């Protein structure tokens, strides 16, 4: 109810003339900033576990070493309280800190560069309303030579596309809005676009799926098998809004994205995102060589599936609506990279819990019950059962995900 009132108030104000766009005390400006802060999911990176929201300190692992997220509360000494508007915009959109230092692109400024200045200042206006938290963070924890920020000049030269985003007149306003959200504030490609050896986005493969921090963020282009080609616009909207639909449940890092960000966005914006994603050019699917149904690994995997998975995901991989995701036809299951699938079997998973779908169903860990070979057979079966098609998975791939030092399945009693 309160939300409905707030939304109505926002809508009413939005109709008013865009009078004081830079007025930091404008209700409209602050509410708009709060919405964009949610869209950007700023809180996810700028909050340490158990820490105050936006006070920074979260460790962000990169291939080059660790960074700590800075404090973005308006504390003058340790946060962004002393920043001028220009300093704030320069940091967020150009990756240049308040002292002129180059910022590491863990802050996805190449995305925020696509945003318009008004929106960035709205975020500033919202952040200014937070309680200042004194929390000094030294973001740079990188080893030599990556700790030398001048290296970023070179990085930016190669990876930082400064082309501004302008509306494509041949496309609908919704498509343009969707592109703005995806390529700007929501920075979807930060996870879903493969990276070059330098850690920059490989734009030739934009949104075609990537491994990040031990999870595979799947292809979100309209590839029919491993992307969202088979998803309807309505399904995409419902997924982003609720986190749980019949064909898929948001889990892992995406569960956090749904809970913190997309579930709180306006339906019209989610629709715009869906329209934009559905309009992308699908990549050419790698032709996988699926194992035959009588392959011994497939047979072993099927037996394990029947024993340990079918009670929830059902014999034919159909799942249970709103609780246990469908595996048959799942794009995540058929992704070229099986990392996430292996990880879910080993570690278990918990679906996003949202107002619309509050259950947050959990899948238990099977690391203690299955050997690497058993997980490999199981995952191979799931990737190729019921009409699915994807490459086989080897025991060594499972061992890599397990980290080589996972629990000994023989000590199966260690379950708590």
């Amino acid at each position, binding site marked *: 109810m309160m939300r409905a009132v707030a939304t109505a108030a926002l809508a009413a104000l939005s109709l008013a003339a865009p009078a004081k766009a830079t007025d930091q005390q404008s209700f409209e400006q602050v509410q708009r900033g709060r919405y964009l802060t949610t869209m950007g999911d700023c809180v996810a990176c700028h909050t340490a576990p158990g820490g105050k929201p936006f006070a920074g300190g979260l460790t962000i692992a990169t291939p080059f070493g660790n960074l700590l997220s800075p404090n973005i509360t308006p504390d003058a000494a340790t946060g962004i309280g002393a920043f001028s508007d220009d300093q704030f915009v320069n940091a967020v959109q150009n990756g240049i800190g308040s002292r002129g230092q180059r910022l590491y692109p863990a802050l996805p400024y190449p995305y925020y560069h696509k945003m318009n200045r008004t929106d960035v200042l709205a975020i500033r206006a919202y952040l200014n309303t937070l309680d200042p938290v004194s929390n000094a963070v030294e973001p740079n924890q990188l080893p030599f030579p990556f700790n030398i920020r001048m290296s970023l000049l070179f990085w930016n030269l190669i990876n930082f596309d400064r082309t501004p985003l302008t509306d494509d007149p041949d496309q609908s306003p919704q498509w343009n809005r969707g592109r703005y959200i995806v390529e700007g504030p929501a920075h979807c490609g930060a996870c879903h676009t493969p990276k070059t050896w330098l850690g920059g986005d490989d734009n030739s493969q934009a949104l075609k799926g990537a491994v990040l921090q031990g999870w595979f963020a799947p292809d979100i282009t309209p590839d029919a098998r491993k992307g969202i080609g088979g998803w309807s616009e309505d399904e995409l909207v419902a997924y982003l809004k609720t986190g749980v639909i019949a064909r898929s449940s948001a889990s892992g890092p995406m569960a956090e994205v749904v809970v913190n960000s997309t579930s709180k966005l306006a339906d019209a914006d989610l629709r715009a995102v869906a329209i934009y994603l559905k309009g992308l050019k699908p990549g050419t699917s790698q032709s996988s060589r699926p194992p035959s149904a009588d392959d011994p690994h497939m047979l072993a995997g099927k037996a394990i599936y029947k024993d340990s998975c079918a009670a*929830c995901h059902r014999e034919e991989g159909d799942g*249970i*609506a*709103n*609780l246990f995701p469908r595996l048959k036809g799942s794009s995540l299951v058929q992704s070229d990279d099986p990392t996430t699938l292996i990880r879910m079997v080993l570690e278990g998973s918990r679906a996003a819990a949202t*107002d619309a779908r*509050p259950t947050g169903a959990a899948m*238990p860990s099977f690391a203690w019950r299955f050997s690497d070979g058993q997980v490999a057979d199981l995952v191979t079966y799931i990737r190729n059962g019921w009409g699915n098609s994807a490459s086989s998975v080897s025991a060594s791939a499972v061992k890599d995900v397990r980290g080589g030092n996972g629990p000994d399945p023989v000590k199966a009693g260690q379950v708590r």
Partner: protein
Amino acid sequence: MARKLPSKDVVIIGLGWTGAILANELADAGLDVVAIERGPWRDTAESFNVGYAPDELRFAIRLDLFLRPAQETLTFRNNLNQTALPIRQFGSFLPGDGVGGAGVHWNGQNWRYHPTDFRLRSHLTERYGAAAIPDDLTIQDWGVTYDELEPFFDRFEKIAGISGKAGNLKGAIQPGGNPFEGPRSDEYPLPPMQMTYAPTLFAEAARSVGYHPFPTPSANASAAYTNPLGLSMAPCTYCGFCERFGCANYSKASPQVNVLPVLMRKSNFEARTDCEVLKINLDGSGKRATGVTYVDTSGEEWEQPGDLVICCAFSLFNVRMLLLSGIGKPYDPATNEGVVGRNYSYQTNSSVQMFFDNKTFNPFIASGALGQSADDFNGDNFDHTGLGFIGGAGMNCVPTNGRPIQTRPVPPGTPNWGSAWKKATKESYSSAFSMTSQGSSYTTRGNYIDLDPTYKDRFGRPLMRMTFDFPDNDIRMSSYVNDKLLTIAKAMNPRQIVANKTGRPYSVVPYSSTHNVGGAIMGADPKTSVLNKYLQSWDVPNVFVMGASAYPQNAGYNPTGTVGALAYWAAHAIRTQYLKNPGPLVQA
């Protein structure tokens, strides 16, 4: 001394079904609610992992989810002439522990009590005359009627996703359902579960001798379901690990599956687990509760002030909480005065076991509430004229499990171990099953609960003392219905039939039922009840007491469905009446 905390609008003692329901309803009304639960936090993801949830040794034998006697126990005696001794290992009944309470470990049979059960004394007097009620029975009306509760039965069934078949829709008898049930405003939210062989055989036999079997109403979901709160259940997998276990499949209705994930999202609700309430505090007048005092696991005491205190513990512990807090006058069987502890009752059960040749029942395909029942001899569904007793029992064929440790049916006379036992086990495991009669339990002057004069708990508080034995009336009733089960058994033509009738004295050792009811009963007269019809204390109007402790006597049904209905009924009264004008909702 206890450290005083900031005050809350509502303090709830215990976070099981009723605590979760009241907290959710009152948080929705905008109140600031805290639930204080003495056991641990439990949820499906963390506590009922499918990888180890069906561990019979851990959960069914070592009773992992249950209250330890070292936490709290009670003393027991059969009658006033005995000295009660402490129960050092729970047996006949098993109180739960932790978030979810009995809603975690139940089998999931979800019944509505019969309309006549709610006005028992009035009904029997109208039909048979006052003289037909045995003098030693203290049975009475509930002060609330079935019709008043009907919308709240419906609400609870929809929250819990109950599977069943209506037998009476708005007065029209429906084929396939229970023709004896009270009129329902709506069908069950889910259809009945898929029937297994033994209950199917029972139903055919019961029908052949003129009875009216129907699918037992089940809280084990027959299909995928999303309840009015947006919480989802998965279809039951018929694994047969229900009673004594948490369900890992989101299939058995529980606070964890059906209420708590929504409640826990609310910023105006807080659950404080591993915190045990010592007593409800009263002001100087003794007519107003000021909050509770509780102790955390480090032994530190806290005072939690609150405007409204709601007792949502297991029924027995609600009664003890009132006795320890001095709320209401304790019952004294010598003078027949006082109310708290009066009219404790139980459940009068019997069974008939059958051994077959050439039949295979696959008992491991089961659920705690998957079966068939017949109500022909329940309550006052049959003419009691000349029978010498009142009350009745549901006849149930609900083979709840085929678990390897506990389900080893063997014919009487089989040795308890060795090759003969193994042989008999092998022969009988799949070819035997039981039927039960779950009977009413009618109250007497001598069956009651008070505080023990000798034994104390780890905090120095007196233990609760239970004085109970089966009245003659109930023994006769149970024997009568057991004979009806034998009629059904004979119609199935088994090789061997074994009848297990209820006898005296009642023993607290073998498991019988955790349907302990009464002791803080509701009613229309403060002289004979603790609570008014809205479950509000007559003496301290800002205290409400939920649960089966409010039942003036027990009927031939599992209590949970009515517990759920009463919780929604009380929550509705608090929201629509009490909050507008805090004070007694019924004038004494």
